């Protein structure tokens, strides 16, 4: 059943690749990438081991099924670095990696060129182990899937033939379960058939069957004892009984292989063996092709039986290890990269490394610092070409104002590879030669042109890096095989520095976990938004959908003064950030909103803010609330829905917490203000060491309250006038 369609799938895949590989014979320049699926994974892994060991650096690239799980999870200017990490984390946890490009580069001194070996792994998180745990599931972002389709991504190859994997955490769990599994079973075999004892022989069919089996086994055993010298009579008999029995040898002992029984019948057989035959044992083992076999084995003595059980246990253990190894599959590539401690190259690769961590190591930590230090342990050297291109002056001069997107940088820095003609641009510059080797084919003028194939993107990234190294003065000719590129002092300025948040230019140092703004930044949009001050931000959601940003701002200006609102930014049509000019306004706003909602008198109705509160679904919170909402595991499409679903839990936290400073404002269980208060107090505990947070004490809180009250008074006067 399973085999035929698989075969068909294989044919399909092979057709696909032979199309790509056709130019083999004709020329040197356009053979395909090394396409790796589960059929050729083992051999490819062996080749890759050699290539990585010899490599000076290894570039990587990933293709995923999506990037953001909801529109508001996209990256905003208003995202502080920790929020940005939460968004990356959400992305890495929800989406699957479908293609993994690995391209080792080795400097060949004799030919004065690099040799690259681009591998394109199709990856699919298939469930390979027979456990019932949470089902494997991943998200697809429709636009990303469509994008992949546009570049002719072969989804069939991915689902039918993709290489599966287990993370280290999953592997440990699997081992644990296997151990549990066969421990249980063996203890059962050790004559305490708890489960088996529970089967009463109700139906006559069962009774008859049991009797028949009893006779059959007795006959066989007696036959064995009688015929120690002669041939087996039983063999002949077994042919008659639909070949359900076959005499074989198991670990030098005679055994009966049971075939074609239902699981219920097998349980009855176990029962018979246990009750009636001291010298027979029922075992479950794996045969040559790892097919499960059920055997009834003859043992000479109790000791021999124990010995058999031990042997069976070892066998099961070995089988479990084999299965786990097979299920780990693609992760061996990651283990290889990690254990070789090679310099890794990626392009704008923070999301990539988050994926690598969550897919192949374990669940992502909730704090970015913890994540990077943990990642750094596994991969000590990583250079981001995006960072290299944007921050190195020598290269900046070359790049001028060109885009630093991968394909643009590749075309600009490596025109001799990008365009096969090679004659274009910047003749005074020296270009590094890059030869490409796939299996036995080698070319110095290679371009598969398969953009957005992970293997090709990895290749481009590596070329860009090599060329950039050349420009910043690293002379590979002075390179001896023993020199480690990662230790080159000219690279140290860029080592382990990744863009955490590309649009705000935050750079994270993987070795220290420090986040710094991008100093040498020439951002075109620099002045589009005023400086973001997180303490001054109020997050507002659920307001009337027709409310335009301008109206929102007017509303607020009427209450807090014309200069009070620095900026208004809509996350989506249901939510907005409001940045006030002063931090006090944040609390003032939240308290005022609360007051207005509680009172239903004409004053509240006529208040300028009431326009904003129309519909009664408007909620607000400070920046910490935003962070909380982002850290939630679910993703509703609209921010307001998300916030409300998280809101349930937020409020739950409140009730259990000592509200301390805000004791004056108890009651009103649905008050978001409570959360503000409690989150502030929690912040005190968590963040005392962090200077970037402003401590916000209870006193200030009550002060703010007074401000509000007086302002409220003023406002009412105004509206009355």
């Amino acid at each position, binding site marked *: *059943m*399973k085999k035929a*369609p*698989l075969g*068909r*799938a294989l044919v399909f895949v092979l057709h696909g690749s032979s199309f790509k590989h056709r130019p083999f014979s004709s020329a040197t320049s356009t053979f395909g990438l090394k396409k790796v699926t589960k059929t050729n994974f083992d051999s490819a892994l062996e080749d890759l081991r050699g290539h990585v060991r010899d490599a000076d650096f290894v570039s990587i690239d990933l293709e995923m*099924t*999506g990037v953001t*799980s*909801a*529109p508001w999870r996209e990256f905003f200017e208003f995202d502080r670095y920790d929020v940005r990490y939460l968004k990356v984390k959400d992305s890495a946890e929800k989406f*699957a990696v479908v293609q993994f490009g690995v391209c080792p580069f080795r400097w060949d001194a004799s030919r004065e060129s690099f040799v690259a070996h681009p591998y394109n792994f199709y990856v*699919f*998180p*298939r*469930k390979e182990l*027979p456990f*019932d*745990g*949470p*089902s*494997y*599931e*991943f*998200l*697809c*972002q*429709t*636009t990303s*899937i*469509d994008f992949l*389709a546009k570049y002719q991504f*072969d*989804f*069939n190859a*991915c*689902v*039918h033939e993709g290489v599966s994997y287990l993370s280290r955490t999953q592997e440990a769990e699997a081992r644990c379960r296997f151990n*549990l599994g066969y421990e*249980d079973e063996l203890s059962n075999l050790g004559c305490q058939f*708890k*489960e088996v004892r*529970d089967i009463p022989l109700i139906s006559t069919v069962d009774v008859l069957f049991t009797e028949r089996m009893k006779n059959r086994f007795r006959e066989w055993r007696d036959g064995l004892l009688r015929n120690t010298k002669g041939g087996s009579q039983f063999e002949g008999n077994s042919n008659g009984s639909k070949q359900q029995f076959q005499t074989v040898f198991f670990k030098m002992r005679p055994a009966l292989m049971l075939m074609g029984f239902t699981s219920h019948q097998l349980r009855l057989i176990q029962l018979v063996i246990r009750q009636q035959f001291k010298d027979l044992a029922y075992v479950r083992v794996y045969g040559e092709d790892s097919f499960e076999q059920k055997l009834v084995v003859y043992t000479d003595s109790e000791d021999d039986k124990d010995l058999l059980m031990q042997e069976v246990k070892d066998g099961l253990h070995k089988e479990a290890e084999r299965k786990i190894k097979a299920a780990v599959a693609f992760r061996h590539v990651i283990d290889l990269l990690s254990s070789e401690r090679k310099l890794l190259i990626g392009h704008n690769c923070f999301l990539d490394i988050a994926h690598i961590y969550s897919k192949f190591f374990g669940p992502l930590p909730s704090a970015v610092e913890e994540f990077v230090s943990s990642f750094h342990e596994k991969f000590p050297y990583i250079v981001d070409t995006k960072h290299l291109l944007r921050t190195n002056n020598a290269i900046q001069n070359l790049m001028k104002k060109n885009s630093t997107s991968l394909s643009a940088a590749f075309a600009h820095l490596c025109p001799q590879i990008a365009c096969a003609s090679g004659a274009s641009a910047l003749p005074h510059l020296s270009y590094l030669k890059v030869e490409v080797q796939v299996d036995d084919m080698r070319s110095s003028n290679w371009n598969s042109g398969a953009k957005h194939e992970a293997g090709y993107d990895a290749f481009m990234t590596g070329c860009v890096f090599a060329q950039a190294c050349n420009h910043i003065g690293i002379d590979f000719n002075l390179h001896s095989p023993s020199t480690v590129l990662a230790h080159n002092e000219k690279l140290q300025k860029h080592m382990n520095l990744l863009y955490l948040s590309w649009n705000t230019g935050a750079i994270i140092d993987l070795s220290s976990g420090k986040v710094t703004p991008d100093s040498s930044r020439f951002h075109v949009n620099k002045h589009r938004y005023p400086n973001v001050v997180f303490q001054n931000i109020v997050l507002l959601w659920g307001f009337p959908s027709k409310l335009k940003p301008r109206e929102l701002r007017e509303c607020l200006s009427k209450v807090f003064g014309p200069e009070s609102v620095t900026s208004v930014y809509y996350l989506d049509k249901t939510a907005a950030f409001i940045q006030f000019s002063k931090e006090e306004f944040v609390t003032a706003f939240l308290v005022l909103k609360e007051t207005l909602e509680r009172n239903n008198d004409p004053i509240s109705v006529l208040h300028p803010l009431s326009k904003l509160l129309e519909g009664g679904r408007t909620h607000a919170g400070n920046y910490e609330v935003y962070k909380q909402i982002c850290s939630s595991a679910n*993703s509703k*499409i609209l921010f307001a829905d998300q916030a*409300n*679903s998280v*809101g*349930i*839990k937020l*409020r*739950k936290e409140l*009730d*259990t917490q000592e509200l301390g400073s805000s004791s004056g404002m108890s009651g009103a*269980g*649905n008050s978001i203000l409570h959360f503000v208060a409690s989150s502030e107090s929690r912040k005190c505990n968590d963040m005392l060491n962090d200077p970037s947070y402003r401590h916000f004490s209870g006193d200030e809180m009550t002060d703010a309250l007074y401000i509000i009250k007086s302002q409220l008074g003023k406002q009412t006067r105004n509206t009355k006038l």
Partner: protein
Amino acid sequence: MSRFLQRRFLCSRSRSNQSSKQQQWKAKQVTKSNFSEALEEIKKHIQDSDFIAVSSQKSGAFSAPWRRVLSIDTLETAYFKAKDAAEKFQLFQFAVCPFSIKESKVIAFPYNFHLFPRDELNLGMPSYSFSCQTSYLTSMAWEGFDFNVCIYDGISYLSRVQESSAKDRIGSPISRIHPVKSSLTPSVADSVFLERTRSRVRHWINACKDPIPKKGTDDALVKSLRKLILGEMFGARPCMSIDICSERQVELVLEMLNEFSDLIALIIPDKSGGPKAVRVVLTSSEEDKKLLERELENLEEEENRRVRGFREVIDAISVSQKPIVAYNCLDEFTFIHSKFLAPLPKSMSEFMCSLRFAFPCILDVNHVLKEIGPLKKAKSLPAAMSYLKRQFFVPLDMEIPHHGFSEQEHEGKNHGHNVLRITHLFAKLCFILKVTPASNQTVNDDLDNAMESYANNFYPYSTGLQELIDGEGMLWMDNSRKVSTEDLAFLWGFKTGMSAGVLKSVFRGSHDVFSEDFEVRLVDESCAIVVFWTPGSAKVLLNVLSSGMVGSGGLKEMISGGLRGVGYEIYKRICRLGLWESNLAESLERESEEPTPDVVGADPTKDWSDIDWSNDSMIKLEDL
């Protein structure tokens, strides 16, 4: 994909009792490229048929073992589970089979539509993202599913609700004007504007109609000159544009145009969807006017097709009001509702209302099956089919007078055959139960009482066709023995890996409540459900568990070892509020420790549980 489509031949007349032939029934495969053509065909077949069978292929069914619909679920909790799945997962294929039963013959027209929620209009619709369950995809791959066809060439769609919001946002390039009310008191500026345009229009009409001097009837040059002078043409008809700057002016212009008989007005929208100009087209006669109106309707239809995509098929089914036959209707119709009609409502009763509005009669084969005693336990379509084949002789002919595909082209592409199985099974059942509609009556009349009793029953008896993917079913109870939800208790906090049998033997005698007859089943690895046949026992047990007041013995030991328990109410709550964790114990634990304020279900859900719960508090525990 075009290789799929062209060749036509009359195929597959096979007798129902020849199993080898059954496999050759083929559904017509429909992708983006042959959709329009197939749509016209299927609309006709829908009109002519007695029933419509539907069946779909999804990207997944549940995110954790306990989250599939189980026999411990009431209709309400089952709905919440189905709703969650329908919102998360995606439809990859949707098979529709209009069929008629004529004496001993079934005439069927099976179509299998490949779907992909491509964002054709760039509006983030129909679906920003969707989940895939890998075991589902893997088993689809085994069956030879072609993911490339689905993703590259799948038909997109918008739900009814999405369509209306899309129309607001894009504005169709030409929108026809429908009569507007005229309760306006024109201002001075208005009347000036009006007067000016009126005279403009009048002059223009006169110029157009001005009879060309008879002598030069053949004068092409004159005609083209006139065209030049009179300005724009709309197709072969003269037209003129009136620039406007507000909605108000549109109304004024439209009202004024009523004075002229041969004019048709069109609103030209600007980029933001607001009106930019009114284009006035002059028709030459009453017939010509009608002709133009028809042309415009066609244009609109084409536009709609672009926007609605596959939903046109669903609409056609809905409009026909024909009875729909499906297997596991709750699954099927939560998907249909959420993808093609509107977001799923918060309660089952609202869902049923909303659904009945679109599809008045839905028949679940599963329920009809239950009429035949031994089939109560049938776990899947094939099982039911083979039973029927063995036990009954049904001289039923299946006829598919369909332009299918030649065998070679079609090899391994037998997708959507499930819909044919459903059709076939349903027809057989009708035959056996003698509820076959007489051939020349209209269906709604002859759906006799017997049939009606099956209609719109959504109780999920078993977990779908795909259940076998993840292996063993996990719950079974005494056949059709009913138990009140009050006699159930969820227990967790025991050693993982304990089987139900072991648990039962551990519980037995550990406390007085366990001295009577009871059942233990695992819901998932982490959590078991205990069924008491003695009323009140569950309550006693839960009290003991929460207070820890128990003298000695096994139960005390287990409580100190972490055993916890809650009643069915909490389970209902976590389903309603969607507090889905990867295992049930975790969900129950969280909810019982810190109850979530019930904001989500603050509205009609409550009513539902208050009013209908009493009728529904009996669960039929079925053998899975």
